[in-house]
Each structure stands twice: as C-alpha cells, then as structure tokens.
C-alpha cells in the first residue's frame, strides 16, 4: 500500500503539553506509560552499570562506599521491577487492550489517568533518597529485621521512602487491574466472545486477576513494616516478639505472582507477533488460554520456594507446586514453536525479539526446575545463580518481549515504522550482551559467589567471569544507542506505516495508525480470534486443520 502521508488522526498527537497532562485517552495514557517506563528503564540500567563496574575486578574501586553499593543494587531491582517491567506491560495493555476488543476506551478513563500519574510520583519519592541521606539499602526484598531501622542498613528516610513509593505503585496497579477487568468483561465489541479475544487480552485478564488479589497483600506487609519502623510496632522484629519470617510469607505471596505479572503480558505480545510473522494462527489457542489461567492459579501456591532455606516452610508442598507450574509453561513453549512450524517466517525486528524471548525464556524456565528441587536450591539459593535465573526470566523474557512489542506496535502508535537495520543491530548487540552478562553468573553461583556482595577475594576464582559479565553489561547499554537513535529518526522521518503494515490479525490493525480518538470509525465483522485476517483473506482462508 503506497500511503505517503500520515493519517489525519496523527495531528491529535501533536497536541500541546496541557492536553497530554490532562488526557483520559487510553492511547495517550498507554504511550505515556511506555515513555515513563523507558525513562526508569534507563535509570535502572545506569544503576546496574554501577554494580557491574564495581564487580568488574576484586577490590573496591568504583562504589567504594559499601553502603552506597547496597543502595544502588536495591534501587536497581526496585526500579526495574516496579517502575519498568510492571508499568511497561500495563502501558502496552492500556494501549492495546481496548483496540483489540473493539472498545472506544478503557472503562474508567479518569482512574486510568490517575493510575499513570501515580507512577512518576512514586519514582521521584523512591529515588529522592539519594538526595536525602540515602535510599533504601536492604535489597528490593527489604527483609526485616534488616529493614527495621538497623544501623548500617536502614536508618534514615530511604526505607520509608521505599515503602511509600511501593504503596503508591501498588495502588496504581490495583486501580489499573480493576479497570482492565471491567473493560475486558463489559466493553467488548459485538461478536468478540471471550474465546475470540486475542491472547494478549487473555494474558492481561489473568495478570489483572493476579494483581487485584495479590497486591493488597504486599500493601499490608508494607504498612506493617512502616508501623514497625515509625510507630513502635512489633510485627516483624523478633527482639520485641515479632516474627521475621512472617514478612517473607506475606511479601512473596505477592512477589511471586508478580513474576507472572511481569511475564504473562510479554507472553501475550509474543503470542500476537509469532502468528503475524508466520502467517498462521496461534497453535492451540484454547490450550494456550488454559495454560495462562493455570499459571495464574498455580502462581498463588508457589511463593514459599523463595524461602526454602529459612527452615520455616512446609517444603514438599511448595516444591511440588513449583515443579507443576513448569507444565503449563512448557505447553506454551511448544504451542509457540508449532506456530512457527510450517509457517512462512519473515524476520522483521519484532519477530527477532520474539525469538530471542523464546530461546532465552526457555533457559530461565528450565532453571526454575532446579530451584523447585529443595536440596538443589539449598546449594543455589542467594548465589549469583539466582541472579542469572531471574534475569533470564525478566530480561531474556520480559524485556525482550517488551522490545518485540515496541517494534511491533510502534507503527500503530505513531503512524511511522521503526528502522529495520537499526532494529537488527540493536537486537544482535542486546542478544550477545545479555548472554555475556548473565550466562557466566550461573557458573559464579555454582562456584559459591553470593548475591549482594560489594567485593570478593581475588583468590576466589571469580575474576574472569565477573569481568565478562561487566563487559556484557556495557554491551547491553551500547545496544540502547541504536534504539534511541532509531526512535529519534523514525519519529521524524520513518516510513509511513499505513493501517496494517505487518498484515496483522487483530482489531488494532483495522483502524488508522495512529487511531483516531475513540479508536474505530467502523469495525469489521468478528467471527474468529482473527477478524482482520478474515477481512483480508475471507473467513476460513488457507484451509483449517
């Protein structure tokens, strides 16, 4: 299609700052979620580079103040989890879900705007600790009693700022999840039955249930910690009759489901991208829906696998459930692969990142079986092996998924394509950098290097692998340069996308790029989970099997 000019709807995105600050349009809010999350991604990334610079060789060279080192890795994880991955996926959900179900907006547009604006506020509160005598430094998990106003760990305002920020982000998430649930259940276009919803919508649905049920629980833990610290409470401090392990139970009751909050929507994106670039439907749609729901349900019964070494956990139950959750994850993996099989693959950048997700998340997923085995976990827990594992899930999985989604939906959001060459350069650098950073950490962990240490002995035998990880970390940072340049030039002069540049399957491709306010002038008939495919080729085209 030889479109040469942007759709007139693009003009509404050139509106003034006031319009952006006060908008209740889910598309603008979604874009602002994404931009906000990228800002925090870069902040979190710089903090990670600080950690890697310090660990590049033995001895304290870069972050010589060890208390600052603890603040830096605590902020890295907090920012990446709560201000990058979770809001980033919520942002894509915000943008995509109403479009994919044929709705004009989210169910509660003003609450939607409020959910968004709580996030930068929380980020500023969290990081302001750096200017106010120190941020939280007890790790992103902030286990008491370490986080209970203990010297050399948690005195000063940082820990309270952390609590405040997390409660704000949690409230934002809860409001967002209710908004998603109402939107998905009440605002689907005629014909869009539950089992015709795109998988992306299904993953946001299950994610929202997880968020709605789990987030209030961590909020309670945070409030109890705040009371302990500031009002003389005794919930978690054993020296005054509290129970330190109680916090861990409550914390992980949220924070393990949060792992699925951080990965399910990315799986949803992959499940949109693989079919489009294979020119085939997703293999096993219903199995995929059931697997997603299964992960959501099982996700609530595995939290204590983070606590196997506390000596205060009923081990067999949590071990069994953790093993079992591998099954629905495996079902998804095979369905993705069989979506590729006998397809006609076009290796555009979104597909490259999606394939990066498949091959890297595979490693993170299989690693989960090691931690599920309690005796093996005794060896691996709290070592760099765990750092490797979680990054293969959250970076190799979620972050690769985010970039896949960004390259895929950027044309819809802006009306212009991102440059393919720069995209491929970014992918290659990021893929190599990622593996160079995190693969060696498996080995370091097996050799006994604990997490969260500022330094290690030069005779410990960990020098070479740490250096490799640091080089890889800077390579990941370098891969962001072609990305930023790409966004910059493509916004100004990228190829005009047209309504449907990828031959997509779902409703967002049936409207203009960018879509007009309230999204659709007219909807195609919805007779399957691929209405735009049906419109293009006819329902039942290409034969069924």
């Amino acid at each position: 299609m030889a479109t040469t000019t942007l759709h007139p709807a693009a003009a509404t995105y050139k509106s003034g700052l006031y319009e952006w600050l006060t908008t209740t349009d889910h598309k603008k809010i979604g874009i602002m979620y994404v931009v906000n999350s990228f800002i925090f991604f870069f902040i979190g990334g710089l903090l990670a580079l600080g950690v890697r610079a310090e660990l590049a060789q033995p001895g304290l060279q870069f972050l010589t103040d060890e208390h600052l080192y603890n603040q830096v890795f605590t902020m890295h994880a907090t920012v990446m989890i709560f201000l990058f991955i979770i809001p980033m996926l919520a942002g894509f959900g915000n943008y995509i879900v109403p479009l994919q179900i044929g709705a004009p907006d989210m169910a509660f547009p003003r609450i939607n705007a409020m959910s968004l604006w709580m996030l930068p506020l929380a980020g500023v509160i969290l990081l302001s600790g750096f200017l106010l005598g120190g941020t939280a430094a007890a790790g992103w998990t902030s286990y008491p009693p370490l986080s209970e106003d203990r010297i050399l760990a948690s005195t000063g305002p940082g820990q309270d700022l952390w609590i405040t920020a997390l409660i704000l982000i949690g409230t934002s998430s809860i409001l967002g999840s209710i908004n998603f649930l109402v939107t998905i259940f009440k605002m689907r276009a005629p014909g869009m039955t539950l089992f015709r919803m795109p998988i992306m919508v299904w993953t946001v649905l299950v994610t929202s249930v997880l968020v709605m049920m789990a987030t209030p629980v961590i909020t309670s833990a945070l409030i109890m910690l705040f009371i302990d610290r500031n009002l003389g409470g005794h919930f978690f401090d054993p020296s005054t009759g509290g129970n330190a392990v109680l916090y861990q139970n409550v914390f992980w009751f949220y924070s393990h489901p949060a792992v699925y909050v951080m990965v399910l929507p990315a799986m949803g994106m992959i499940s949109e991208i693989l079919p489009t670039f294979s020119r085939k439907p997703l293999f096993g749609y219903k199995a995929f829906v059931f697997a997603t729901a299964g992960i959501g349900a099982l996700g609530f019964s595995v939290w204590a696998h983070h606590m196997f070494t506390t000596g205060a956990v009923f081990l067999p139950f949590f071990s069994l459930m953790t093993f079992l959750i591998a099954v629905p994850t495996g079902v998804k993996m095979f369905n993705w692969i069989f979506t590729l099989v006998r397809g006609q693959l076009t290796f555009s950048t979104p597909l490259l990142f999606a394939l990066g997700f498949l091959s890297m998340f595979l490693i993170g997923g299989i690693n989960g079986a090691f931690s599920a085995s309690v005796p093996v976990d005794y060896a691996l827990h709290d070592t760099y092996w765990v750092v490797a594992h979680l990054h293969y899930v959250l970076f190799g999985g979620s972050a690769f998924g985010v970039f896949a989604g960004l390259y895929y939906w950027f044309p819809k959001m802006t009306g212009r394509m991102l440059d393919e060459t720069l995209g491929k350069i970014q992918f290659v650098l990021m893929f190599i950098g990622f593996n160079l950073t995190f693969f060696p950490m498996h080995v370091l962990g097996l050799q006994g290097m604990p997490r969260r240490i500022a330094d290690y002995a030069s005779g410990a035998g960990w020098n070479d692998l740490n250096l490799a990880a640091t080089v890889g970390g800077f390579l990941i940072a370098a891969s962001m340069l072609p990305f930023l340049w790409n966004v910059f030039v493509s916004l100004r002069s990228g190829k005009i996308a047209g309504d449907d540049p990828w031959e997509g399957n779902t409703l967002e491709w049936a409207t203009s790029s960018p879509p007009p306010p309230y999204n659709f002038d007219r909807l195609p008939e919805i007779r399957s989970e691929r209405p735009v495919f049906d419109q293009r080729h006819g329902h039942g085209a290409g034969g069924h099997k």
Partner: protein
Amino acid sequence: MSSSPRPRSASDLILIAILVVTMGALIIGALATGFMDGMFPPEAVTRQGREIRSLYDIVFWIAAVIFVFVEVLIVYSVLRYRRKPGQDELPVQTHGHNVLEVIWTVVPTVIVAYLFVISLQTLNSIDAVAKSPDIHIRAVAQQFRWQFDYLAEDGVTTLFTEDVATSDQGGGMHVPVGANVQLQLTSPDVIHAFYVPKFLFKRDVVPGITNRFDFTIDPAEAGQTFRGQCAELCGTGHRVMLLDVVAMTPADYEAWKAAKIEQAGATPAPSASAGPVAVTLEETAAGIKFTTKSLEVTADQAFAIDFKNEDPASVPHDVDIRAADGSVLADQPTIDGGTATTYTYAALPAGTYTFICSVHPFPDMTGTLTVK
C-alpha cells in the same frame, strides 16, 4: 481442505545435517574446553553434599536434554520455515492438534513428578537431624562476624567459644571428619545465612528461630579448610562475614578441643603481661568510623589506647592490631556503644601495622599504626 504432505527436499536434508553437525560440534566443544565443568557445583565434601550433588547431576542432565531438544526445535523451525520469495499463497492454517497438546502436557508432568519424588527422597535424607549427634556447635551470626560455641552433650552448655571465624586469623570452625556434627544457628540481630559452597548447602540464621542441620565431613578431607560466608544480605559489612570450616582427624580435633577448654578455663591475663605502659593514646568510634586514622607509638614499648565507643548500644567495636599480612597481633574484646575502656597492648617491633575494628573491618574503621 487437505494438503498433501510436503516432500522432503534435498535442501531440508542438508539443513538438518548442518544442524546436527553444528550441535554435535557445540556439545563436543563444550565437553573438550571444560565449559561443562562450570555447569556443575564443586565436588562436595560432606555426605549430605554428595547426595545433593548426585541429585543436581540428574536434574541437570534432564534439563540439558530438554534444553537442547527445544532449542534445536526452535532453530530448526526458524531456518526451515522462512518465507521464500514468491511465497504469496497462505500456508495451511493449522489451529492446533489435540493429541500433541496431550503429549506435551503429560510428558512434562511425568518428568516433573519424577524430579519431585527423587528430590523429596534426597531432602528427607539430608534434612534428617540426629537426636544425639557426635558434636554440638552453635554458630552465632551477627553483624558482621561469626562465632562458634562448642556445646556439651546436652546441646546447651557452652564448653568454649571460638570467636575468630577464619583460619588465616588462626580461627575457624574446627570439626573432626567422619563425625556427625549438628550445627545450631542463632542470630541476635538480623537474618544471616550459613553457607559453605563445598557443602552445597546453606541455611538461614533467623533471629527468634534456632535452625539446626547435621553434616558429616568425608574422612578423606582431613586437613582441608573450606571457605564459607554469609549468604543473606545483612548490611554494609555483608561481604566481610567470612568463615572457615577446618576439617581435622579425630585425634587432632580432640587435642585442639582439649587445648581450647584449658584456655577457656584459665584466667585471661593478656593485658597484665603487657608490662608497664609507656604511652596512652586516644581513639574514638562514632558513626562506625574511627575519628583518628593514624596512631604512632615507640618501638618495643607496651602502650595503651583509651577507647570510647560513641555509637548506639547495639553497635560493638574494638581496636585490634594486625600485621601487614593480616595476621592478628592483638585481639581485644569488643565494647558496646556508649561505653569506654582502656586497651593495653604488648610491645611491637618497629614497622607499620593496621589497627582495625574486628566487627567492622571497612576502610572507615581501619587505621595505620606506625611503630618507630
């Protein structure tokens, strides 16, 4: 619409051959270069650790086979099904296959059920805690040091305490090989974790809870020392919470233990032996820092330091002296925050030494002692 099965073209066969050869080369390369060694934990030195290692090996090889199988499937699909020029007709729109779904649900379920069962068996064996072990030790973990109380047969009474945790400072947790040692873990402050990589084992030290575990070091390991360290973030000094496990023959252990008990019974009189004090210096700790970072004394004359600890009561400090090689020349008892004491030190030959707080051995609590 049914489609006839695609004939396997020569290019497909070549593709499969290339994949097989590449994978084979990668696997052989991995084995030959020692890459695979990095995929395994160290050889265990305890009975329990060896059981964990056997279990790890099973889990690893099953995982490795699944990984290679799935990754090859991905790479194969990517190479095999790329869109060729002129391929405009849609591929067959396969929506799923129920038999395949059942297969890839049931087979993984069987695999993880097997892994669960063997993990549980190993767990029951390594987590077993004896009613009357051969040796009771209580490890006390606190910010940022380990202390080992050797207990009587009742598991309660302390016979003597080893408060130097690493062997390069002349301490460490000494245990006889072949004996069933039961370690009790307690913490007066925050959560720590006892971790010795060569045990392939760690256990949290949770304030308010006494965790216990048993271990038996293999007889062949007598004379070896195993480095361990705290594995649960416990504050700024987390990384310095090192410990050593010193494995001894039973005879050596008995001799070491007897000497320790005798030492503990004797009246400690180290300061009295220092002789008359030539000079008294002053040092203060505040905000986990020494206010004076360099001190100077005369060679071959005993001296003293008036030491004030101005930190909160829960923060103990001391002023030890170490030689350039890190060996401890003077080991003083700690004092709590808000108190003061006078430490006396025996004469030292001329040279440069380090004075340091053994609880917080960071740059802020390290100074230079010049003796001339």
